[in-house]
């Protein structure tokens, strides 16, 4: 079977659409002030975690930053847990205690989202170490932004994983911004590839903005890792469509040029994948049926979340220390 035939185009589109639609519902309902948690939206960047998580066929142990909606949804495919948490209800991942920045669903492979830049990276290395020792068959993956590469903890982790030959996936979603600060004001190196390749890892980079490309790179990395375990460093360029935090666009502020917007949105990954399905022979009505079903699913999750109970007062003190439930 050729690599191209193995790519599940429809599945990838469904997950992409699912992630995008969930965030569209966030935008639609945010002003109701029922989701009282700061939102760092994945808009524009979904194709990266979707491609990686689906390539791993759900066997990933996922670590992510505060911008982790798409990673969580791609891994767990669970919009009930997602909206339950955003709405701060008992049906959420953590009784609402985590919120958007701190999603988790360990039973479904989403182990950690953290609000401190770079902090999940060494944790992923530790999980990879455990996976190797215990032969769990799972793959630790950590998603982070280009800003996290500034943090010393990233380099310590890359070195540690390289020295120990740990098959952890370091996936850098490079949208070119740390909040509002561009690379020219942050990076003393001119090429992350040059520095990354110095380490004993498999390095991949890509600026196609294409979910199938990310999927293929991940499959390639997986086969290399099986043959010879090493960490994987993936440097994937993308565009953050919305503001750093919040549900609006901020192109008007001027710190990013309109060029950036146009270049990336012209090759929007969701639209690309939809067109690919049509090229593969799916009809408009078939695609729309798929989209309607996903929309229904998400809408019902939102409704259920809004109607779910808020956590009782005693949940405040629950889980501070380890307890047997």
């Amino acid at each position, binding site marked *: 079977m050729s690599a191209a035939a193995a790519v599940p185009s429809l599945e990838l589109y469904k997950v992409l659409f699912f992630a995008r639609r969930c965030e569209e519902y966030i935008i639609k309902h945010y002003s109701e002030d029922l989701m009282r948690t700061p939102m760092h939206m994945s808009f524009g960047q979904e194709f990266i975690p979707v491609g990686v998580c689906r390539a791993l066929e759900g066997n990933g142990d996922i670590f992510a930053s505060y911008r982790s909606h798409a990673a969580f949804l791609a891994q767990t495919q669970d919009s009930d847990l997602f909206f339950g948490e955003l709405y701060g209800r008992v049906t959420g991942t953590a009784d609402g205690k985590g919120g958007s920045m701190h999603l988790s669903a360990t039973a479904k492979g989403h182990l950690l989202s953290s609000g401190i830049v770079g902090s999940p990276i060494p944790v992923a290395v530790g999980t990879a170490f455990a996976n190797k020792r215990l032969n769990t068959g799972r793959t630790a993956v950590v998603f982070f932004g280009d800003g996290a590469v*500034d*943090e*010393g*903890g*990233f*380099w*310590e982790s*890359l*070195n540690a994983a*390289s*020295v120990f030959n740990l098959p952890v996936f370091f996936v850098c979603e490079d949208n070119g911004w740390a909040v509002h600060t561009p690379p020219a*004001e*942050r*990076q*003393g*190196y*001119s*090429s992350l590839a*040059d*520095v990354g390749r*110095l*380490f*004993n*890892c498999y390095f991949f980079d890509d600026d196609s903005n294409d979910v199938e490309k990310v999927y293929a790179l991940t499959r390639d990395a997986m086969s290399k890792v099986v043959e010879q375990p090493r960490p994987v460093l993936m440097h994937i360029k993308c565009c953050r469509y919305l503001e750093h935090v919040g549900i609006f666009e901020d192109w008007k502020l001027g710190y990013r040029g309109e060029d950036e917007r146009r270049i990336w949105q012209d090759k929007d990954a969701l639209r690309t994948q939809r067109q690919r399905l049509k090229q593969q022979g799916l009809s408009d009505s078939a695609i729309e049926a798929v989209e309607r079903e996903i929309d229904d699913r998400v809408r019902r999750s939102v409704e259920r979340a809004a109607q779910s109970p808020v956590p009782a007062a005693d949940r405040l003190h629950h889980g501070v220390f380890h307890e047997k439930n």
Partner: protein
Amino acid sequence: MRLLGKGRAGSTPLKSRMLQDRDKLEMHGVVNATTRFESLFRECLRIRLVEEKIIELYPSDRIQSPVHLSIGQEAIAVGTCETLRRTDLIFATYRSHAFYLAKGGDLKRMFAELYGRVDGLAKGKAGSMHLAAPDVGMMGSSAVVGTNLPHAAGAALAARNRGTDQVMVCAFGDGATEQGVYHETLNFVSLMQLPVILLCENNGLAVHASQQERQSYNIAAHARCYGIETTVLDEGYDLMRVADTMGSLIGATRGDRKPRFIEIKTFRYKEHVGPGDDYDAGYRSRADLQAWQAHDALVQDRALAERLRPELEREIAAAVAFAEASPLPGRAELLSDVI
């Protein structure tokens, strides 16, 4: 109004202590005896004899401070400080006896400090790991690996803003390059183009662990990725080559205000901490030591060492006597200098 004062080197450039000595010797007609090599040799020997005196004293428990000895690595400090001015700043580590002395730190105050006496350079509060002498540009030595790296960057930032032509040198071991703060600092000095020379004293060991066990990267290649002019010098035992190389880098940085990186291979003769040898511990062999010593001028050029030794030993003996006579610090020193 708080004055620019404490801890900040003044703005008048003065020659290094070594060059001053040489000038004096020349002035007093001792010209023929003093070649540049001999000056460098003398400085290295002085340091080694100090370290050997510490080893001799250690069993008496008069020095109640962990000592990380510079034996084997002296040439780097001496070669660097030959060209540095008093106003240039060195940021070194817990293994900094050599830099302290080469930069011009007072020997008496060093021994008194090791003895924990009130006349020590830090009233006994610092000990061996925290030697400092701001009046000659030897900044605080820190015991936490890698912590001096951003200090050098920050001092260079200050030099830029204040318009001084100081050169900062940050000395660190190969182990420090594994620290996240090292990567952050490399990035910062490159990004800001700061006048720092990052000097990696590569003795191949972080305590007892070899580089191979710890590092997945090549130190020099890594520094080059940041666009920093990088030099590697394998012959860290060669006094003249080290001095020439460092002199050239310091001059260049003073002129163009750009960061530079140099890795100098060296050899730590003694155990990581303490006065002893540990060649039976299994992580390295005596053959490794002997291979290095074959190039060590201090070991090989016995005649020169013997000629210079008496005067140096007298100086050291006087410093030890000073320490022995100095009183112990008390409650006043315990609670002073907190804020």
